């Protein structure tokens, strides 16, 4: 009866796994917002901006914003660029020198970011200003247009499901699961790092933001999405899960002959 018992044990374990899997599959995936630090109360915003800049940015970007050997010039980059880098936590920079800045927990409160943006923009003086912080309104009516633009301009690097991609040269097009609508449009206007500039009209910008926002809660009607990056993980799962389960079944069913039941009439 050993083989019958081991078969039963296997099936029981499989059923338990199944129940767990069905339970997990029906849970919705949500992504949490990036953590922020509580604001320090400062009475004068512009002074706050200058103070914060001196503390956190000047060592790499220069006290006048003209850049040093450690960081590029910020003169004329525009409010959108500064807001993007700060609100995604990319700046202040942490990581290997000359490596790509990555999204991480935001170091400043919303007020502090606003003041820093104002300060950096003011450093540019009379020089032509870069893109301003966009106002973004999403709308269901724009979803299809947003998908169309995304498929043509964004999916090649960020993936069809916005799960990110390796684009060579040590660069990574990051996953878009945490991008806010404003950050999405800011990135397109600014072209941060290796990302090129996509200066679309306002309606198209809103459309792309709508679609990226939709992607973050996109339904997966077929079950677990296994990373959403296509045939590579699917093939891996086919071998490990599919062939793995079948090998267990095959070995259990095949081996069971080795010891025929001594009492077949039980």
């Amino acid at each position, binding site marked *: 009866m050993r083989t019958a018992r081991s078969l039963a044990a296997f099936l029981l374990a499989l059923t338990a796994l199944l129940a767990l899997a069905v339970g997990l599959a029906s849970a919705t995936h949500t992504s949490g917002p990036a953590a922020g630090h509580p604001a320090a109360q400062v009475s004068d915003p512009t002074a706050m901006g200058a103070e914060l800049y001196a503390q956190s940015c000047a060592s790499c970007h220069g006290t006048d914003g003209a850049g040093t050997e450690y960081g590029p010039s910020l003169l004329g980059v525009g409010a959108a660029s500064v807001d993007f880098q700060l609100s995604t936590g990319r700046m202040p920079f942490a990581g290997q020198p000359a490596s790509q800045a990555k999204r991480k927990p935001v170091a400043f409160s919303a007020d502090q970011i606003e003041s820093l943006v104002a300060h950096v923009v003011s450093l540019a003086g009379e020089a032509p200003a870069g893109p301003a912080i966009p106002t973004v309104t999403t709308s269901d009516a724009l*979803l299809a247009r947003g998908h169309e633009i995304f498929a043509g301009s964004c999916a090649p690097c960020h993936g*069809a499901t916005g799960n990110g991609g390796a684009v060579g040269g040590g660069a990574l097009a990051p996953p878009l699961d945490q991008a806010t609508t404003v950050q999405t449009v800011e990135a397109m206007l600014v072209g941060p790092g290796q990302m090129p500039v996509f200066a679309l009209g306002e309606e198209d910008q809103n459309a792309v933001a709508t679609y990226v926002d939709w992607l973050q809660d996109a339904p997966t009607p*077929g079950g*677990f999405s296994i990373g959403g*990056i296509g*045939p590579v993980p699917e*093939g891996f799962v*086919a071998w490990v899960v599919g062939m793995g389960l079948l090998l267990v079944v095959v070995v259990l069913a095949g081996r069971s002959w080795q010891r025929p039941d001594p009492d077949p009439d039980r």
Partner: protein
Amino acid sequence: MILRWVDERLGMASWARSGLRKIFPDHWSFLLGEVALFCLVVLVLTGVFLTLFYVPDAALVEYDGPYAPLVGQEVSRAYASVLELSFEVKAGLVMRQVHHWAALVFVAAIVLHVMRVFFTGAFRRPREINWLVGIGLLLLALAMGITGYSLPDDLLSGTGLRVIYSVVIGIPLVGPYLGFLLFGGEFPTETIISRLFVFHIMLLPALLIGGVLVHLAILWRQKHTQFRVPGATERTVVGRPFWPSQVFKSTGLMLLTAAVLALMGGLLQINPVWTYGPFDATTVSAPAQPDWYVGWLDGALRLFPPIEFTLLGITIPSVFIPGVVIPGIAFAIMTLWPFIEPRLAGDREEHHVLDRPYDNALRASVGVAGLLAFVVLTIAGGNDVVALIFNVPVEAMTNILRVAFVAVPIVGFWVTWRICRELQRRTDAPDPRRPVVLRRTASGGFEEGGHER
């Protein structure tokens, strides 16, 4: 009573009796071929269902189904029918997913089955013909997979078709003509979708199912091979009869295989073509890979250095050697191995008793080297995904794998050779001529009575 009616017309009682009592040896590794067969059964059953909903038409229509991001977009009728099947047909999505998972597992099972046959020397005389049929079945399975996953006409599979087209037109002298013939013109054509459909549901399945029947018929005629177990010699086979033991076990296995595939088809999303979008020759999404069993070919295209040259005024494109020559050589060696090995090993005898994997060091080493090369190429096919997951620069992955493609099989060959030699030295091969006592049972069969030293 029914049997009497049939027998009066077909007279097959004695054939039935010998068939039902036919002995099949037992080892779990002999069931791998069956698993592949049962995957095929699932593929055919789910495939018929899919065929009744799919429309093989590349003409453009405006999508107006429930998937919001595509509403109002121009997509092909084929793509729209796949979305309709996935979102608007009851049980449509689960059938589609079971079908696709079954295809991936089908080829995996075939690969394991081929490995078992190869490493145990089951292809040796008199089974060379069945090996050839089997390799043919493997190629047909690959072709079925490629034609199948291209039918939805989505951006990912369409990009794969583009690569296939490019490899074809890269063949010297005949390439462009062949490419235009197969596709019906310069890529992309509307007609390729309906042609792939014809291959996928009619021409290739006919060859595949016919080949499977021949494969099984030869196996039936020659009787299955078996490992060296007590009682087994080159002149006998030890096992259990076809009916009821093997039939019950195989039926159970078929249902369990279908169960595993159903579980995967329900819980694991596969090939979500709605996220890739419809095919558009002027755009692409990343990462771009074919299904796993073509990954090795994509990997070969990725790893091969940028070499393009002219020979007597004929340009040899950079895709020709990795896309046609190298796979051609590999498959040629694989196909002809049952004829190569006897010449190298000096053994042209009939064999019904299987080798242990280490009994033939050359075969095992060549097999391991080939397998490792295949694995390296398959990983290379996903080098950008590997780079993404492990946060390694893509260029570094490519260069590492280029070196690995050459170094790993060589090291694997040498290590396998040494291990085989060592294991051969250590184990006492049991003498297959060791006497066994057999007792005749009342029902007419034989059973073992014990061993004599």
